[in-house]
């Protein structure tokens, strides 16, 4: 493979992986701490995207400085996280932690479907189009091909900040450490006086915010329409499962790997680009059912 091709494939892979990572890491975090596979995560992504598109279009109508759209991206992720996270955790999930896993899966799936309809109620079925932030940053030439600065630089930068930030939070701060303890052994943590419910609330809100951030950042690059939630939940699940649920750095690496595989497919075998992420996931899970970075679960008695 020549250098130009490699560069192009890598750049495409990185910007693609950045978005998928943001969503997958939230999913992974929630599973790691709460042991709930949250299918509704995809809906949070979509709602983040819709909210951002609404804000950006509203901003265009106001005639204000278009640069304000960048803080709006962040703001919509925070709002969606702060509103939906506690609402869902407190109102719904709290009631089912002790239930069987299959029931938890069904409940979050039902929530996903309900939220899909809520999106249709609020935003209708037309596609929204809010590319102001993408156009503002302009483009940069790499190996003879133009890339938007937004996709080639901003998205990877945000993903790296989130990755480093999460690492710092989990290893160096008290709430982060408590969260890690609950992940390791919930019963022991509770026996030591840790308020697991508060930890769950915090984790779920943070995870929701990350999904919404993924959506917010995706909104300027593509049209926002019904159906994006389903696609993203499947993809981010593929990433999170390949990495091993709960693995944060692992999710980043698998997202890159899957992004790279998919980009390479567009150049080498365009027929395969849609299935490549799942082929990679299948290959990984065949050999390491616990995921690439997952640890084998010790059975607790």
């Amino acid at each position, binding site marked *: 493979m020549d250098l130009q091709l490699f560069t192009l494939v890598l750049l495409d892979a990185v910007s693609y992986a950045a978005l998928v990572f943001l969503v997958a890491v939230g999913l992974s975090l929630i599973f790691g701490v709460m042991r709930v596979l949250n299918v509704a995560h995809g809906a949070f992504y979509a709602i983040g995207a819709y909210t951002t598109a609404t804000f950006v279009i509203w901003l265009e109508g106001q005639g204000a400085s278009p640069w304000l759209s960048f803080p709006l991206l962040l703001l919509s992720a925070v709002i969606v996280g702060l509103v939906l996270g506690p609402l869902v955790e407190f109102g719904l999930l709290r009631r089912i932690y002790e239930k069987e896993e299959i029931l938890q899966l069904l409940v979050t799936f039902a929530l996903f479907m309900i939220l899909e309809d809520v999106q249709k109620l609020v935003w209708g079925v037309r596609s929204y*189009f809010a590319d102001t932030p993408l156009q503002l940053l302009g483009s940069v030439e790499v190996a003879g091909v133009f890339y*938007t600065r937004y996709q080639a630089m901003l998205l990877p930068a945000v993903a790296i900040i989130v990755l480093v930030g999460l690492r710092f939070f989990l290893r160096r701060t008290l709430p982060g450490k408590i969260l890690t303890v609950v992940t390791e052994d919930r019963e022991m943590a509770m026996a030591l006086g840790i308020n697991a419910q508060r930890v769950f609330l915090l984790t779920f809100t943070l995870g929701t915010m990350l999904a919404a951030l993924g959506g917010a950042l995706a909104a300027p690059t*593509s049209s926002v329409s019904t159906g994006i939630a389903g696609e993203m939940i499947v993809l981010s699940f593929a990433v999170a499962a390949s990495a091993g649920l709960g693995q944060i750095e692992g999710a980043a690496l698998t997202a890159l790997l899957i992004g790279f595989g*998919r980009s390479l497919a*567009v150049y080498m075998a365009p027929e395969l680009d849609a299935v490549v992420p799942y082929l990679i996931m299948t290959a990984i899970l065949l050999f390491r059912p616990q995921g690439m970075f997952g640890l084998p679960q010790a059975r607790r008695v």
Partner: protein
Amino acid sequence: MLKRTLFIVMALCLLVVPTSFAQDEPEPVRIAVFTFTSGPAASYGMPGRNAAELLFEQINEEGGLGGIPVEIVFVDEGQGGEAVVTEYRRLASEGVDIMIAALSSGNCLAIAPIAEELEVLTLMWNCDTHQVFEGNEYEYVYRTNSNTIPEFVSGALYLLDQQPDVETVAIINPDYAFGRDAAEIFKATLAVINPEIEVVVELFPQLGAGDYSTEISRLSASRPDAIFSNLWGGDLNTFVSQAEARGLFEQSQMVLALGTSSAENLGDTLPEGVIVGALGNGWFLTPEVQSNPEAVAFIDAYVERYEEYPSFPAFKMTQTIQSLELAVDTAMESNGGTFPTKEEIAAALDGATIETFAGTLQMREDGDGQTDQVWGVTVASDEYDFKVMDQIIRFPADLVSAPPGEPAIEWVSTLSPDILEMIPEPVSMME
């Protein structure tokens, strides 16, 4: 539990049955209209839906279809192919009289044999694939619309007429019948006119892919003189916005077969100088449309109600409804004024010539339709806040359509390079 369910079902039946005995008013003609009203394809499907709503309302205000009121039900193709087929069967069993179906070529290919099996009169309003009638004879299926052959032969001719020096071409089409067919036809036409032209990349992203970043890198890296695409709806909007941000429009001459249907959605994002088509003659700023007072009245009513201009899917819907109106009227003239049977309507459609808002629709004996093909180049306008067409060439239907019964792609390869000499001169609507 079972007993209770049975009881409820019976109670419901009792509620429903009496209405069918009420003969005071004539029973309405029930028509189902299939289009995309959700998902990325809705931005293309809604104009079709809107046009049907508007036109059938007007028809009902004027006394109905052949004097009988029309009742329409919309079916969303966004629910997926299998569900659409199920819905078609369900509506047929509930006694829907006429189906206006469908938008997607994939759905039309699935529906055509079922329509024939159930003997339900089906008017295909939008789907273009030439495969529908290739090797099939249908009694109840009509396509009141042109097919992929004229639509993409004319596109390739327009490109070569405007840019005779094109040497390399890339293609990016959606991955199903419509995209694959178009690529074959476009390539075959180029090969006839200039066998030296090289197709450097062919990409078929899945329908509704949502992101074309990698595809755009690949297109950009291969530096083609021209890029042809029949992406549509939300997909086309996304592709254009991503490609524009990355300078693809400056690198290559873009040919967007469905470009006019996204022009208003895209606004400033669609650059000038892009070759765009309308899959037929449905562009509102042609001399033919603007000189037709009924068409202008329709456009005004449409803009007033839906706050956007009718793009070509709206025109495709109007020409289908106008075909139906004409066929019903013709059939009633010959049968003495009673509402015609589906066989009588079908007979009236055979070989009919329909004067539509956008020009003439010629129905052929194989059930397929033929219209002129309109292509142009995008240009900014003072009057509209989106790009409109300039350098409009109206390709006569007969020049670019394969004759009935002939294998379509083979017909394209029998074209002579002289066909470029037979194309009408471009017309400008900008003054």
